[in-house]
């Protein structure tokens, strides 16, 4: 089971900082030459480099002595006792993870360790340990067989969400959109309509509080309901400070009924009610950005999450569960839909990643109107990297692309400005805000 990894963010190292390499040099492990510092000020590059810990390692494949091993933990280790110093690993590794040590006549891997993470003053290198998340995964509540499209990420979202939340003392609500869950889930389920999800959740949660049962009410609804036809209901429930967790899977159209436009559909996006051709160029309006709209209700918790970072989403779910004891907790997840976006079913996770990397789906959270970015994105990719990868948006011409780029940048930067002006810091007195 692969449970721990180290990530290197694209944050720039301070020009003169070598603390990580110094920490590694102090290590007594001869098979680990430590992280490598890359300093190319002429190219404005200040970063670190280490072994990629590949899952299909070139070095392990070539080592004639079997000195390199892919462990069950997912890391690759080097046994200096078996290493014959032939150098073939450093010739085979196209990731630059192995160097040769001339004096010792041995290879040495450039591995990040906990010491490296501790040494870094700017949190550029982080340990991501999902052991806890993996250990705490609860049973899958989805029944056998699936009635969803090939590659459906909404189905994955439901399964993963419930594996984090569990079914004990939980009622799960859905509606007859894509998230039509009745008969498909092994958890107490209440089917709402698309237009009244938050009302259903209100009634349920108030009932359980009235009879003294500690039951968590969770709703999973799409963007059609959330952004448009049940927006008022959600807004009202947020205003009344109802107690439930609301997860919006945003596939940016009314998908289940045949890919009709919603308030979330991007401008110029093709849907069956916003055609692209000589008469029109897809959806006319810019999309509504519903997570910000809900956050401005100053509810206890709002977050955006992506299925490209399950550990982050799991943390946000737990935050949401806790906050749902005090008011409406809302989590927005951009959910690529191959059928509606006209993309390949196997691309859904890559599209999720691309959405984050292009700032199309910035990741943040907010409590009581105070904001914080949860993921930085200093090397923003151009939006065309995203739009060209799906049939619904690849028709964009230069003007439309420029307009889209501007809209995406504005949307992401608006949140960043909110986070600057109203920062959600650790010293914010949440209790005081809860009691207001």
């Amino acid at each position, binding site marked *: 089971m692969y449970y721990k990894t180290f990530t290197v963010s694209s944050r720039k190292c301070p020009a003169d900082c070598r603390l990580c390499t110094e920490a590694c040099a102090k290590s007594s492990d001869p098979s680990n030459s430590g992280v*490598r510092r*890359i*300093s*190319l000020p*002429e*190219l404005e*590059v200040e*970063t670190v*480099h280490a072994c990629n810990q590949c899952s*299909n390692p*070139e070095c392990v*494949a*070539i*080592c*004639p*002595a*079997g000195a390199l091993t892919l462990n069950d933990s997912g890391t690759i280790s080097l046994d200096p006792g*078996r290493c*014959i*110093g*032939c*150098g*073939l690993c*450093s*010739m*085979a*590794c*196209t*990731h*630059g993870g*192995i*160097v*040769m*040590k*001339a*004096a010792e*006549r041995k290879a040495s891997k450039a591995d990040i360790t906990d010491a490296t993470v501790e040494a870094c003053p700017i949190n550029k290198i982080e340990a991501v340990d999902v052991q806890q998340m993996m250990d705490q995964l609860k049973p899958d509540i989805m029944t056998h067989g699936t009635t969803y499209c090939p590659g459906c990420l909404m189905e994955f979202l439901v399964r993963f969400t419930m594996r984090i939340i569990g079914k004990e003392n939980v009622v799960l609500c859905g509606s007859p959109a894509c998230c039509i869950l009745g008969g498909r889930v092994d958890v107490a389920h209440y089917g709402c309509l698309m237009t009244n999800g938050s009302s259903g959740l209100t009634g349920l949660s108030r009932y359980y509080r009235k009879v003294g049962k500690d039951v968590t009410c969770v709703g999973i609804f799409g963007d059609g309901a959330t952004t448009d036809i049940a927006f008022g209901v959600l807004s009202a429930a947020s205003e009344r400070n109802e107690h439930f967790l609301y997860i919006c899977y945003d596939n940016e159209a009314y998908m289940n009924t045949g890919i009709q436009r919603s308030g979330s559909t991007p401008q110029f996006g093709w849907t069956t009610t916003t055609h692209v051709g000589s008469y029109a160029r897809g959806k006319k309006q810019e999309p509504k950005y519903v997570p910000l709209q809900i956050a401005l209700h100053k509810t206890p918790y709002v977050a955006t999450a992506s299925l490209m970072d399950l550990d982050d989403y799991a943390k946000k779910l737990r935050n949401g569960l806790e906050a749902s004891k005090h008011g409406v907790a809302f989590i927005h997840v951009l959910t690529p839909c191959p059928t509606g976006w*006209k*993309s*390949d079913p*196997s*691309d859904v996770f*890559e*599209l999720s*990643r*691309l959405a984050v990397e292009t700032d199309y789906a910035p990741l943040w959270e907010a409590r009581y109107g105070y904001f914080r970015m949860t993921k930085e994105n200093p090397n923003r*990719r151009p939006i065309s*990297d995203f739009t060209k*990868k*799906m*049939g619904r948006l690849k028709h964009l011409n230069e003007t439309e692309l420029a307009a889209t780029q501007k809209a995406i940048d504005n949307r992401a930067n608006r949140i960043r400005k909110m986070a600057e002006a109203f920062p959600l810091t650790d010293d914010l007195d949440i209790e005081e805000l809860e009691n207001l």
Partner: protein
Amino acid sequence: MTTYKYLIIGAGPAALSAVNAIRQSGDIGSIALITRENCDPYSPASLPYLFDDEISEEGLFFKGIRAVAKHGVTLLKGKTVTAINKEKKEVLAGNESIGYEKLLITTGAHPDVKAMERFPGIPFDVLRTFKDYQGLKDGSGIIIYGAGLVAIELAEKLAHKGVSVTVIARSRLLRKYFHKETTDLMAEILTKIGVKLYQGVDIESIDYREGRYNVSLADGTAIEGNRFVCATGVKPTIPFEGLELEHGAIKTDGSQRTNLPDVYAAGDAAAVADFFTGKLAPFAILTEAIEQGRVAGSNMAGQKETYAGGISSNILRCGKDYFFSVGNIEPDDQTTLIAEKEDASFFCAYLKNDVLVGAVAWNHPEYNAGVFRYLIYKQVKISGKTADALKRDPEATALYLMNAKRRQDAVGLITTK
């Protein structure tokens, strides 16, 4: 008769790489390795290291034994495949027929000893198999005829062990892989550690009596020794007739397929496309054998993979000095060189049309030869500022360019066109 889903002739690095690729694809079908050798799988690249105890016999077989156990492979030892029935999909080994759904030929290569035809009746050793090593291991006063990687590595190890060794190179040592400046350096190092080295001269005559060799070189030099190793290159081992050949090796396409249905070939036995010219030829380089094995195994298991073509990739340790050369290091008038040279090290990158085509280094063990390989394969553009950076700090620039290219290509992972 037993039929295996995957039958692999040979048990060397290409074979094990194919086994790994098959299992990585998720296929749990039966795999058998059939080898004419009567031992566990091993990599011939390790053999020189046995001579100075840098690897033990246990170490030699460690990886092969582990791989066979881990991947649930049947090992058929001591059997030589001599014929194929391509309609029935069977091979013949001895008088035993073995069936296959997919067949992979990784029979490798065997020593090319035509240089010894001039000296009929003179006994000699070769070094390609474990059995060869066993015959040679207790030898002393060793004469090595040849100038390739096997010859030089063996000489270096023997000298390291304190065994008297002489190398006779008909032209220049490692001529195919390194320039004269580099091999002159290597010659110095080898001589310093005790190798008696003769370059640019051929053998006139060999006299052998009572276990003693008396070798006369064309320039009159007399050399004496107890053992004579012919290390003058290898040629592909072709197991049976019916295979289309190219330059004596089994012709393959980009998926390692041969002309016979469901029959693949990889490694030293195969003729593959040169990355630069596209011409088919045998390419006896270990990195290429591993990659071809991976491509063959993947394709046999139903995944689509392509072999991008062979790039010469050589790394050698001479004493404490590391040397590597990758790609095309023969400059012409279109080649730009980016070189840096110190007293005890050098590095040179060869660019054509702003694209890296080759690299060579001495005493830069911290430079990643594999990353330069990657840059050559991906034809990453290097010009202006990046070329300047490459000159100033080749190690860091190469890593940066590789990472940037990977990031760029990550978008290409998405299959929607």
